[in-house]
């Protein structure tokens, strides 16, 4: 068994899980929801083993390092963290349908990584040879994943809120009946960000600590750093929106979506469109 075979199985599992979630949403049969989450868990397990295997394979090749060193590996890890955070949320709160709005992000990541990116294992360039890489990347991506989940929940919130407003009578029928009430969605959105914000804060701090250790400056306003701060500002605004009159509900949901868009730009856009110190992630 090689890691690349397992990664293909993972991608396939996420595809099946997502489709099952869609059918579950339309058909409302409970067993479909259980099947969808079971397949997602299976995919998560396969992916966990695959990441471990790839780690070992890099040692067998004599360039041993954690599988977090280029764009392919980071996208795979991002997809893993998304499913992980969703699994934790599912175990704790049991609002299964959220999977229909979260699994597409995980699938998108895996599909892009497997089809569009260079999957080779490469040796680490000197700039990345540090344990800080591990702390920094893991905290950042766990934070990003929580924001992805929050974004999925916020989209559900907006759909549900629009629907509730336009059509009161049939509120319980059809697909909308499957959605948790908007109050619950609002709360889940907050809870996901409550997980993501401290992790992003840690991610920025470990990045600053690493920069200080390696370059003697903990902050140099390079585009990647600045964008991570922009993301941080948006979610800080989200947290304060909840205690500000006139900012709850829809506006908070939009802030969460904008926050995730900024997160994705920070992760991918900066490398594709802007130049800076973080050559990492740019390797095609």
């Amino acid at each position, binding site marked *: 068994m090689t890691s690349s075979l397992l990664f293909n199985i993972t991608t396939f599992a996420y595809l099946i899980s997502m489709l099952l979630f869609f059918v579950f949403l339309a058909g409302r049969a409970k067993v479909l929801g259980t099947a969808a989450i079971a397949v997602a868990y299976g995919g998560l397990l396969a992916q966990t083993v695959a990441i471990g295997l790839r780690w070992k394979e890099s040692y067998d090749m004599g360039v041993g390092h954690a599988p977090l060193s280029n764009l392919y590996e980071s996208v795979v890890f991002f997809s893993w963290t998304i499913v992980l955070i969703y699994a934790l949320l599912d175990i704790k709160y049991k609002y299964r349908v959220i999977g229909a709005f979260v699994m597409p992000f995980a699938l998108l990541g895996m599909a892009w990584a497997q089809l569009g990116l260079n999957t080779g294992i490469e*040796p680490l360039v*000197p700039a990345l040879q540090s344990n800080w890489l591990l702390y920094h990347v893991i905290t950042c991506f766990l934070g990003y994943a929580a924001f992805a989940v929050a974004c999925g929940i916020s989209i559900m919130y907006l759909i549900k809120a629009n629907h509730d407003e336009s059509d009161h009578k049939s509120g319980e029928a059809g697909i909308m009946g499957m959605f948790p009430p908007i109050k619950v969605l609002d709360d889940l959105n907050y809870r996901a960000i409550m997980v993501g914000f401290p992790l992003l*804060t840690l991610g920025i701090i470990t990045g600053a600590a690493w920069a200080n250790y*390696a370059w*003697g400056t903990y*902050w140099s306003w390079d585009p990647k750093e600045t964008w991570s701060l922009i993301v941080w500002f948006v979610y*800080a605004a989200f947290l*304060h929106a909840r205690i*500000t009159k006139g900012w709850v509900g829809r506006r908070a949901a939009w802030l969460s979506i904008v926050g995730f868009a900024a997160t994705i730009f920070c992760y991918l856009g900066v490398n594709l469109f802007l130049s800076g110190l973080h050559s990492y992630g740019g390797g095609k």
Partner: protein
Amino acid sequence: MTTQQKDFLHSLWDFFCSLKLTMFLLISLAVISIIGTVIPQGTPPEEYLASISLAKIKLYKALGFFDMYHSWWFILLLYLLTVNLVACSFKRLPHIWKIITEPVKVLSGALEQSLSNVATIRSSDDPAVLKEKVAAFLKADFAEPEVVEADGAWHLFAQKAPWCRLSVYFVHLSVIIIFIGALIGSLFGYKGFVNILEGESVSKIESRSGKQLDLGFALRLEKFSVAHYASGAPKEFKSILTVLENGKPVPDYTNARVIVNDPLTYKGITFYQSSYGNAGNYFFTVSDLDGKNPVSLTVEGKASVNLPDGSSMHVLEATRDVSEFAKDLSGPAAQVELHTPDGKAESFVVYANHPELNLQHAKEHGKGPVLHYKGAEERMYTGLQVAKDPGVEIVWLGCLLMVVGIYIAFFMSHRRIWVRIQHGAVTVGGNASKNQGAFQQSFEGLVARLTTDLTKEKQP
């Protein structure tokens, strides 16, 4: 002070305390920070300046866009955020302090109305006995209660972790501590750069603003080396450095190894591996296409030299053994860049052991001249980044406070339980500062256990 002035000061205070201002500032900071990620900061590269119009350059300069994170308007927003933070905290702290230090211990009707978790247990026991039982239960199950008698009723009050209400203020304080650390760094620290040749020592460095700074000691480069992976990609850049005080090596800082991600710190000044190069001479011969008129040529380090035909060249990189990069070839080689008199530039490799390749290259490019590489006298230098930042510890302290504070603010909560014993009824009320759902569950559990506790002992 007139009432008008008072009103003005009052609304100014309210303005600075308001969360609407916080929202405005956080979102504005997020949006305008984008500018500096699109426009290059510091000294923009020539190609960038050439790609935009002169009017734009003037405008950007006037607005401070080339150094926007230090521009007055960006700093002003940060100051406003700080004032907002301090004002808001000052306004709310007394109230929070009161909740912590002077808790409401009596479960009045009004308080009962405001609580979302309330339950009543009926019991015909003597109130004084009930009071003892409930007190013992709360002590064992939740926290030690305080008991007061008021309006002919017994009131019990117990609480857990009241101090975690302060965590938000510690998060806010941490932002200010980080700002203070950054300010100290920018006032009393510096960033600089120094090149040291193998075997030589320096005691002065050049700061980023171009000033010469005295280190107070000297630093000698013993050796610089580069290691490669089998593929030719760089693996390690290594400087061996010795710190000298009054010309004498300092024992623990002799032959210290500095590589990327592993710097050397001495007396609060840190040296980081940043770049390197060869300052030694490279040797070439230049001839016509038919091999006539050979001239030997010496290139000093990175300097540019003129060739007999009027073009100029400089060395980009050189190796002692080209087989690391190209399997079929051997011997020394140099990558050079050639600028012809008609303004064309090209970069190519010149070999020592493969004159035929040098000739072939020249032929393909027309009339010559032909370059042959003769090897180099190696004299490596290392480029070190130098930094001194006395504020950095304070920044880390602020970061630590922020992370701990956020964790407590999000995942811990101040929980309170009130009990009133009156008219054969035990009324229990509960409240948590955070995480209502989880608290509701534990409240229901507590009431259920209390109910069995109070009813079971009636049997015998």
